[in-house]
């Protein structure tokens, strides 16, 4: 099982000081957070993609390329890559390039974006959101698997005998997750291809996550990729920790109360009760996270959101220390217990290369 962090990349004022970091500071902070993730023994760093203030990560492969050069083991991923408004040809090229530079430590998560206007900014129609995700990914899937592609669709100019370069590292495309919060069509798409499904459950009650994951698992089996238990599932989570639970609550409350997403709504207590948010001691985070598999089944990837709501870099790095030292080692051990033999490991490039060779030989 893989553990990591995902960042939205928001520039948010620190409500306790009123100070807003500059874009430059935030970008450098994201890189520092990624490097710290490797240092403390986490497996994955994923960045969001946004094209409007107050978000900075508009160019994920640029950032991930830089992180790749400064890390050795960390898997670089996205949360998410906009399959709707990006040109699938450019996604194919950018991520294949990144794959070579990072020696295969790359996967990515497809998403449709959280801002309506992003569609017209890129000349697209939001009412075609699902259709764009379907058609663009179908093309991307081919570009990474066929050296020469002739293609015609509804949304993009046709391709005649086109070769996307560079070809994927070892001829094995990056693993793809499809991220969705509430669209069953995306769970269906992930199942159809036998790709991973990431449910970003951080703002959602458990029963909703359960239903989405169940849909994906049953359709994964329907399409013949394996049993429902063999489907590849990822989940989100968000945490704020101090050794002493009361200290965590006291320190995090002003950030929670003013956060762009959930601020000025339910109380911290109501929100932690109804969603995966955990504010407390490392032990409380361990206990809450272990409950995820009760409704999602044994899964492959757990990503935590830790650098949000205007938290200063220092506090975020302290969160990573606690995750690396106290939380993740216990989670690795506990999640391994009782994990059925048939449940696959989280995907890595090396394992996918080995699997591809096996198929070629047999």
């Amino acid at each position, binding site marked *: 099982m893989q553990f990591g962090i995902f960042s939205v990349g928001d520039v948010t004022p620190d409500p306790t000081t009123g100070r807003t970091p500059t874009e430059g500071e935030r970008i450098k902070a994201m890189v520092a957070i990624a490097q710290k993730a490797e240092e403390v023994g986490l497996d994955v760093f994923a960045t969001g993609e946004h094209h409007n203030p107050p978000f900075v990560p508009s160019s994920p492969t640029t950032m991930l390329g830089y992180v790749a050069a400064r890390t050795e083991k960390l898997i670089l991923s996205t949360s998410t890559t906009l399959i709707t408004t990006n040109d699938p040809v450019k996604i194919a090229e950018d991520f294949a390039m990144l794959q070579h530079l990072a020696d295969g430590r790359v996967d990515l998560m497809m998403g449709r974006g959280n801002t309506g206007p992003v569609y017209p900014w890129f000349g697209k129609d939001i009412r075609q959101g699902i259709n764009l995700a*379907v058609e663009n990914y179908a093309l991307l899937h081919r570009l990474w698997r066929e050296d020469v592609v002739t293609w015609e*669709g509804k949304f993009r100019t046709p391709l005649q005998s086109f070769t996307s370069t560079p070809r994927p590292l070892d001829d094995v495309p990056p693993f793809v997750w499809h991220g969705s919060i509430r669209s069953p*069509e995306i769970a*269906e798409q992930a199942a159809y291809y036998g790709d991973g499904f990431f449910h970003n459950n951080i703002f959602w009650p458990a029963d909703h996550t359960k239903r989405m994951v169940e849909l994906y698992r049953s*359709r994964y089996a329907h399409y013949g990729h394996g049993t429902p238990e063999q489907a590849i599932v990822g989940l989100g989570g968000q945490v704020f920790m101090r050794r002493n639970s009361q200290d965590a609550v006291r320190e995090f409350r002003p950030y929670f109360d003013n956060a762009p997403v959930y601020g000025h709504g*339910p109380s911290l207590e109501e929100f932690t009760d109804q969603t995966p948010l955990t504010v407390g001691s490392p032990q409380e985070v361990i206990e809450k996270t272990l409950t995820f598999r009760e409704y999602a089944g044994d899964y492959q990837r757990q990503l935590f959101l830790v650098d949000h709501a205007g938290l200063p870099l220092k506090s975020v790095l302290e969160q990573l220390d606690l995750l690396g030292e106290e939380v993740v080692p216990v989670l690795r051990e506990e999640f391994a217990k009782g994990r059925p033999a048939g449940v696959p490991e989280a995907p890595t490039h090396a394992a996918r290369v080995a699997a591809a060779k096996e198929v070629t030989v047999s």
Partner: protein
Amino acid sequence: MRLVVVSAGLSVPSSTRLLADRLATAVSDRAGGQGAVDVRVVELRDLAVEIAHNLTTGFPGPALASALDAVATADGLIVVTPVFSASYSGLFKSFFDVLDPEALTGRPVLIAATGGSARHSLVLEHALRPLFSYLRAVVVPTGVYAASEDWGAEGLAERIERAAAELAGLMRGLTAGARVAAGPAGSADRAGSPPESVQVPVSVPAPGGPVGAGGFEVIPFEQQLAALRPE
């Protein structure tokens, strides 16, 4: 049969709730009498905070989730709002804003409102009816408006009876229709069925239609992809 009554009155006791109860009793009497109709009243006042939270978080708290489920599975609905600033109340609208937009499709709805004077009675026609038409509900022809003066005057009781008869007819019709669609055994139930003029929408799954899993319905991916292929 399940009848859900949504009342957006704020005071206790409230004339909105009073109208809601009068309508619910009239509908129950006509839809099969005592025991045949399971009535659930959703008081939006009790859900006001959860509705506001749902607007900020995107998901309903436990009590609101239960109310939304009840609405989405009702055989018929009575919705009653006080008139605030020439329209339905903001709380009333917010409840239907957080409801799944598909939840009312084909569902019979009786619209009603209360106000201080008769001058606002057309709020039913310019505010409530378009809202529920947008949600693809089947809105019964008679809406019931009760101004303060109506409670002591003639006419309100007749309007309640007429609207209730229309809603009960649709509810019986839909239930009978579902039985007919299920098999010939249901045809016996057509005795005492609504007037022939009442259309009975029966949902027929389209060939190669959606498949269900995990409580969701999805279009199989091949169909989704095929629909995008250029001619």
